[in-house]
Every structure is written in structure tokens, then in C-alpha cells.
């Protein structure tokens, strides 16, 4: 996983976030680079969603 993808996972482990919050935290990164990292995070299959549609890192099995 790239450094950016690892950072995104860490941020989502801290607290659930809307996708736009994740984007906002990385506006300094080129959009294409961000999308690529987001793809890495999704491919890692570590995310789940809460009722508000926020992403969080799965804790259980």
C-alpha cells in the first residue's frame, strides 16, 4: 500500500469520516494520486460503513 493509502487507513481508524472529509484532508495531493490511493484502500477490504454513510476501518472479523 502506498504511503498515502496507509495514511488514509490510519485516519479512518481514528474516527469514521465522510468521503469528502477524507478528500478535504488531502487537497494538497493531485486528484489522480488520491483516487489511486483510495482504490488501494478499497482493494484492501478493510472498510465498513456506518449509518451516516461514513467510512471506518473494520475492527471485528
Amino acid at each position, binding site marked *: 500500500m502506498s504511503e498515502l493509502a496507509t495514511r488514509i487507513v490510519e485516519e479512518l481508524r481514528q474516527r469514521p469520516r*465522510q468521503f*469528502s472529509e477524507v478528500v478535504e484532508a488531502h487537497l494538497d495531493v493531485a486528484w489522480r494520486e488520491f*483516487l489511486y490511493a*483510495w*482504490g488501494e484502500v478499497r482493494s484492501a477490504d478493510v472498510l465498513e460503513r456506518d449509518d451516516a454513510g461514513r467510512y471506518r476501518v473494520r475492527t471485528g472479523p
Partner: protein
Amino acid sequence: MTPPTKQSFRDFLQRLEEAGELRRLKKGVDARHVSGLMAQVREASFFEQVIGYPEWRVVGALVSTRRRLALGMACAESEIATRFEEGIRRPVEPRLVRDAPCQEVVWEGDAADLTRLPIPLMHVKDGGPYISGTLVVSKDPEYGRNVGSYRMMYRTPRETGIDLVSPSDMRVYYQRALDQGRPLPIAVAVGVHPYELLAAAYKAPIDIDEFAIAGGLHGAPVDLVRCRTVDLEVPADAELVLEGELLPIGWTADEGPFGEFSHITGEVKWNPIFRVRAITHRRDPIFYVLQMPWENDWLAAPVIEAAGLQALRVASVQPVAIRAPVGSCCYWSLIASIKKRPGEGKNALLALLSVAEVKLAIVTDEDIDIYDPDELDWALTFRVQADQDVLIVPGARGKHIDPSVRADLLGKGGLPTTAKLGIDATIPEGVPKSHYERLRYFAKDAVRLEDYL
């Protein structure tokens, strides 16, 4: 004689520009800011440079108003429903061509990477960036080709989610493929003329080819080209085509929320995944962003208004004009004026309330300009007695995304119902028309304003 040719997406852009309805923005824009900027522009937006995507230009909000939709349909704003009806009555079969602008550039294998497209983030609560203005083509061995429009949420460079929750022909096709444990090949065209999108939005019978309906709207055949990696055909003049398949995983992947056509954020849904095999596009491609909710609403208007006209005629009521107001998302309300005979105000209401999920119908006489809100208020004020001219139909079919139906109380799989309201704003039976004679200004026709300026 040269056969007629259909209008292309680029012809439509030109038409908008000539009408002063397209704003060009020359400075480079970040794809993350495209929707936020479009929301501030009165006209449709044309972004000439997108940061990080030097090959691409981006357009959007093309049919965000009734005027721009009417420009796309080459008719007056009051005629979009009748224009749509004429088109669907005279389908024109598509024709297959060998060479297509949409295949001038082909990305296959690792090159078929969705991050190469300037996919925008539209709303604050969206679950991801969305490809919104899609024309999705699929095929079933028994029913044939289907064309619909489905939102697609970016997941990875090779995958998107796709909203296949609502009943649709492609949902049937996918279920049949899923039952056999096989993927459903699909092709997604982006950047097509509004007629193609209208045909896709129209709930045609399952065995009717939506490309033939689009041809009827154009008055000329839609040119189709075979895809490179799937056995499907797409409009040859599309700006962009994604080829691939819906994986046979059923409704198991999170997708959404997305800003819905009801102007409200929806919920996370469970949906299939689209995996891309190839991306093809024009040499100087334009990425189309269908700006939700406005464009979705206006693309629904001719369909719902035409259904209203049809319902009135079936009820033997003669319609004069009809409109689906954008405040009701061009979906939940219908306002019509009619040539009324005694009792037909109520007949007309019953007919209009039978259309899809329409929950508010207003009927006026033909002398009322239903496009003028003040005229409508006047009719509602002086032609309505609430105890005689209002119909309430409880327990009719509703739609989940209307918060007032309280769908959250129904439990999983519960189907909501709604009450429907009809207001007969025609002149009541027994009241002479002369009581509604409008004021006229003395000598208005005898004096000319320009003589006094």
C-alpha cells in the same frame, strides 16, 4: 437523397453556446471543484482545462433548466412533452457503423484505468466520486438489448459501484445472469445527446430498443459501433465508453450515498460491482458531468409530462398544457390546463394522480397560463372551494426517498404508501364564466408606449 443525420453531443453544446446558455471557463480547474463551480454558474459550464488531465475538457449542467432541455429537444419550453410523444411514436432503428469517434483512442489491460478520467466529487455526503451522465447498454439472450442510465461510484482504478436497486430491465438481466453464475457484460457511454438520455430514462417495454426511441426523437437513426471487448453496441459519437462487466456477486457491495434527484442525500445501498475491461474515447474528449439533481429532474420532465397527457386522453379529457414543476423534482407533481366539460376537472385529477408516484395534481381551465405562478395562484384562489374541489386519495404507492412516507418505520423490504392530493382549480360548475372576466385597461390598444419614451 442523403439520409437524415442525428444531432450529436457536440451539436448540442454548440446550440447551447449560440443561445448564450454555455459559459466557457478557461482557467485550469481541479476535478474536485467542478461541481461546486457549476453550482455557481447560471449557464451550462465548459471547463477548458482540468488540472492533471491535460487531454480532457469537462462540461456539465447542460440540461439544468427547462430552457436548456428545450434547446436540446429543438422545441418550445411548453412543447417538451408533445415533442417527446411524437418521437416515441415513430421509432427509428439504429444503424451499425464500422468506424467511430468514440474509439479513436483505446485503453485496454492495465491502461484501462479509471483514475485517468476527471471523475468529480459532487456533493458533501457522497460516498465517492461519481460518473453520473451514463448510458448503460446490456443484452439478454431472450429480451435483447437494453439501455438505461445508472450512477456509478468510483471504487478502484478498475471498479465502480453501480446502483441497481430500483426495478429496471437491466436489473432483470443481471438477476438472470447471476442465477447462471455468470457476469453481465455492459458498456457505458458518457457524453451523448440528451435524446439518448431521454430514451434511456423512458420506461419502455422490455422488448423495445431504446436506441430506436432515441432515433425517433432525433428523426434519424442513431449510429452504433460494436464495442472492442464485449458483444454490445454503443453510440458511435459518444465522448467516452467504458466496457466491462457486472460481477456475479449480487447486491453485496456498499454504494452511495449520492445526492438523489429528490435534492436529498440518499442512503448507503448494497449493489453489484462493475469491472472495467477497456476504456475508449474520442481523440479530444469531453467528460460530461450530469449535475445532480437538476439535470436528472429535467430529463424526467418530458417523460412524466407525456405520461400525464396520455392519462388525460385515456380519460377522454382534452389537455391544453401540462408541466411537472422542478420543485417537485419534475416527478411528484403535475399541473395541467384542459378544455373542460362539466365534471372533467375531477376526471382529470383522477387521471393525473394515476401517473407513477405523482402525489399532487392541479387542473385549471385553458385560460390559465400554468407556467405563470401568479396565474396559477389566482385560479387556486378564486376557482377552488376546499370542501368541494380537493381530492385526497390515501394509501397509494409511494417512493422511499420521499421522507414524508416514513419508510424507515417499515422495516427491511417494506414498501411505502402515500396520500395523493388533487386540486380542481377549474371554474366550478354553475358559476358563469362571466364572473371571471379579467380587467382590461382603457385605451391600451389605442396608445403606444414607444411614442412616450
